[in-house]
Every structure is written in C-alpha cells, then in structure tokens.
C-alpha cells in the first residue's frame, strides 16, 4: 500500500466554497474540507446530493463556476502551491498531471469532433510532436488499452454514436492513458448500467495500477466506493463527517455513515423496514473525533 513517509500527492486544507443567493447572502456549499491523497492511493468521497462532493473535486482542478466564492488555507499538488499559481500555470498542470472524468460522456465529450480528433488534442498537449501516422497509432493503441474491441472504428466515430460504457472508456483513454499523477472521477459510473459499470471500473483499475495514479472517486454509491477504494471520506452538508479505511467502514462510528450504510437495502435478509436516516443538526457544526486516519 502507500508509503506513510512519502509526502502526500495532493493536500487540501480548510476549503470553503459559497454561492451568493438572490438577496446577496452567501450560501455555503463546502465548509472547511481537509483531505490528503497519496500517490497510488484511492480515496473515495461519498455523499448525497448537496453534500458538496463534486464541488470539492472541481476546486482541485480550478473548475469552479465563476459565481463561486472560495478560499482555502492550503491547496497543494506535488509540493506546488496551487493557490499561488497563475491560471495559466494551473491549466498546464491540469492537462498533464491532473485529470478528471465526468459522469456522462454525452455531455463531457465534444459532440462535433470525432474521438480521434479529440484524442489528438489531448496527446498533443502532453508536449510530444508526433507525425500523423504515429499519432494515429498512438490513438488506436490507447483505445485498445481500454479494451475497446474495434479501436479503428471507434476512433472515427462521434461521441453520440457510442454507447455509455464505450464513451466512458474513451474518456478514460483520453484522460488516463497519459498517466496523470492524480485523477478525479466524478460519478464515473452513475449513468451506466451495472454490468457496464463493472467493465468501466476494470479498465479504470488497470490504468490506475499501471501508472500508479492517485484517485479521488466521487460518488453517492457507498457500497461501490467501499469496494473500489482504499479510503473513504463521507461528506454531509459541506463537511467531511468521517474518514476511514474502506474495509473498516462496516464499523463506522458516525451516525450519518452508519445511517447511509443501513439505508441500502441488503439483498440477503432484508429487514421488515429499512432504517431511515434522521438528520441531526449537530452534524453540520460539530466535529467528530476519533475517526480520522
């Protein structure tokens, strides 16, 4: 597993994001989130809608909407301070060392360009100058590496001609095959059927292993994150309420985490009635001790 003495790949401290409402008052969406991710480690961020998990992922890449007002005590990547960088430097970092996969390839891939044209752009940004043939070979290779069976045909197709699972694999080919150090996956399988999700997750698994990439896996699906990630952070109301190793989640201590786990109907021996999650206002303000690792 990860080497404890190694410096963390990415570190966030006290991230706060708020949006101005109609009347000008600031509505906080993320309230003081602190995270670390190590090289090769898989961190899952789990929360329901409105918990702020997607915003946290986007803040790392500088992809927040312009109306968002945010601040952080520190935001470091690979020892570099992201807060001190110019937008240009940040963008350069994004293309090469940090990547993101989003939920629905229909919306995250450009619909007026073929797959090959889009991949050409991404590969070119890595800095190498390749001849047309070498570029084409590289593209087909990348598509084959994500287990696409007919990479030549897919390379010349438009995103809307591809199925959901195929589109996500193309996204992975584009974003991960260059071997970024950190990958943020925002609900990568939520729009996919369960069997197709398995395929996509396998491909993601392989890619991450091969390049020793750090992963931040954002999802609302706690059981899935438990099975795919090493560590899990549970978010509620813009804060992280509990962080622990994935295998220890069944013994989670925070009532919200326990409630989330219990709310999933189990296939074997389901109860008469599923326990419902009562929301305690103290979860929004108090910190929970003894869970951070």
């Amino acid at each position, binding site marked *: 597993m990860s080497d404890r003495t190694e410096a963390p790949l990415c570190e966030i401290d006290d991230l706060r994001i708020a949006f101005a409402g109609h009347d000008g008052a600031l509505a906080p969406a993320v309230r003081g989130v602190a995270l670390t991710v190590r090289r090769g480690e898989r961190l899952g961020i789990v929360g329901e809608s409105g918990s702020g998990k997607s915003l946290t992922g986007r803040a790392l890449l500088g992809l927040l909407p312009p109306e968002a007002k945010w601040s952080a005590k520190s935001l470091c990547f690979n020892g570099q301070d992201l807060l001190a960088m110019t937008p240009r430097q940040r963008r350069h970092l994004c293309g090469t060392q940090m990547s993101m996969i989003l939920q629905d390839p229909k919306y995250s891939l450009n619909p007026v360009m073929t797959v090959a044209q889009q991949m050409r752009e991404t590969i070119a940004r890595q800095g190498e100058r390749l001849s047309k043939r070498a570029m084409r070979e590289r593209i087909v290779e990348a598509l084959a590496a994500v287990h696409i069976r007919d990479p030549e045909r897919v390379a010349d197709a438009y995103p809307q001609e591809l199925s959901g699972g195929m589109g996500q694999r193309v996204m992975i080919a584009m974003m991960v095959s260059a071997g970024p150090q950190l990958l943020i996956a925002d609900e990568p399988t939520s729009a996919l059927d369960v069997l197709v999700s398995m*395929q996509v997750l396998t491909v993601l698994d392989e890619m991450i292993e091969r390049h020793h990439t750090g992963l931040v896996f954002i999802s609302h699906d706690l059981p899935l994150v438990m099975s795919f990630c090493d560590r899990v952070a549970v978010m509620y109301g813009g804060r992280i309420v509990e962080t622990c190793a994935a295998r220890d989640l069944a013994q989670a201590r925070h009532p919200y985490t326990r409630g989330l786990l219990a709310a999933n109907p189990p296939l074997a021996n389901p109860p008469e009635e599923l326990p419902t999650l009562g929301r305690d206002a103290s979860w929004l303000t108090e910190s929970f001790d003894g869970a951070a690792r």
Partner: protein
Amino acid sequence: MIEIDRAHIRFRTKTGHVDAVRDVSLHVHDGEVFGLVGESGSGKSTLLRALAGLVPLADGAMRIGGQTAERRPRRDVQMVFQDPYGSLHPRFTVDRTLREPLAINGIGNQDARILDALAEVGLGPAFRFRYPHQLSGGQRQRVSIARALIVEPRVLLLDEPTSALDVSVQAEILNLLRRLHRERKLTMILVSHNLAVVGFLCQRVAVMRNGQVVEQLGVEAVRAHEVAHEYTKRLLLATQGYTRDTGAIEAQR
C-alpha cells in the same frame, strides 16, 4: 390478476423498426409484488407502459383482471414514474394535482380524500398548496404515489420510482411502498435495474434482456444465489460491488 401473453412491442424508427419487447409471457397473481429487472434497453419500462395502455401492442395480449385495456376503466391501473421532476405539472399545486383524477372520474368528497391521501404517504396538510418546485425529489414522488392511489386502482405500476433519489430518501419511499402494499393489498409491478431494491419489495422476479424474459424466479432463490441463467448470475455478482474477478469476467465480454 395480470396476464401477459406473448406480448410483442415494436417501434418504428427512421431506418426500419426496433423490437423493444419480444414474445414475453408473464403472470402476476392478485396482491403480489412482481419485479422486472434488467439493464437499459431490456424492454422492462416499455412493457410496463404497454400494461398501462400508454404504448400499443404489435402482437399478443395483455389482460388485467381478465379484461383488456379497452374494456376496463382507466383508473384500475395507475403508474408512478421515474423522474420526480417531470411527473407533476409545474403549475398545479399539490391539491390540484390530487384533485384532477377525482374530478375526471366524478368522485365526490374531494377535500377529505385529498387530505387522507396526503396523510397516507406521509405528507401533512402543510404541503397541500405547495407548487412542485417547492418540494424535494422524495416529496414529489410521494405526491405521485398519492395521485396514483387516490383513485383506488387495482394495480400499481412503478417504473424505477427511486432511482433518481438519494439513498436515504429511497429507503423512506421503499418503506412507504411496502406499508401501502400491506395495507391496501395492491397488486404491484416494480421495474428496477437494482436487484437489491427489487429484493426488498418483491415476491417474484423476472429478468429481462434485449426485450425477452431470460428467467423468472422467486425472490428467495435470488437471495440464495440459486439462479439458473448466466445473465442473472452476472447481475447478482455485480450487485455485490466491484472485485477484480467480477471486473475481469465483464471486461472479456
């Protein structure tokens, strides 16, 4: 109670036609909760809509209570839809949404019935004159369920009623559906892609793929993993979460 006999549903497309449902035969008993499981494109939602009379059959027959769609009153079969944001008229208050089915069917005592319906789905009278945009996703689904039940149907069809909801809200709605089934002894058909949800509510399950039923089995068999068809096995395995083995099997397909 519900009989589907070699149903065949076909859609015309620009280039020809697509067989959404092919030669499906099912039988649902009175008071039973029957599950239809499958991935997208399996035809499960289309089959449900045909049962509701929203989609025509190309061949075969569907009978509810012995009668086909034209013979029985429309209100006998009601449906709860997947998307909570599209299932309520944006300009109608909750009161109006619930009053419409009563008004159309000439049912009297409307105010009392509306209050009862709201109470039954766990919404107090405070919600009565709200507009849909003032309700959360879970609250909208409750209103949809109340609307379906207010005309006292014999059959309730549910098309992925919780897949657009947070898991904690889903738990509340599943509990509600279970209670309603017990109290009203409804016949229900639940369509879902989630085996665990189906396992919680249903007694029998049919697994669909590419417009056909590949297996029908009781829910205990599903829980015990005693499934015959290989596709069902794969679905069951995938429900347990991601493992390298599960992934390897799927990646080779």
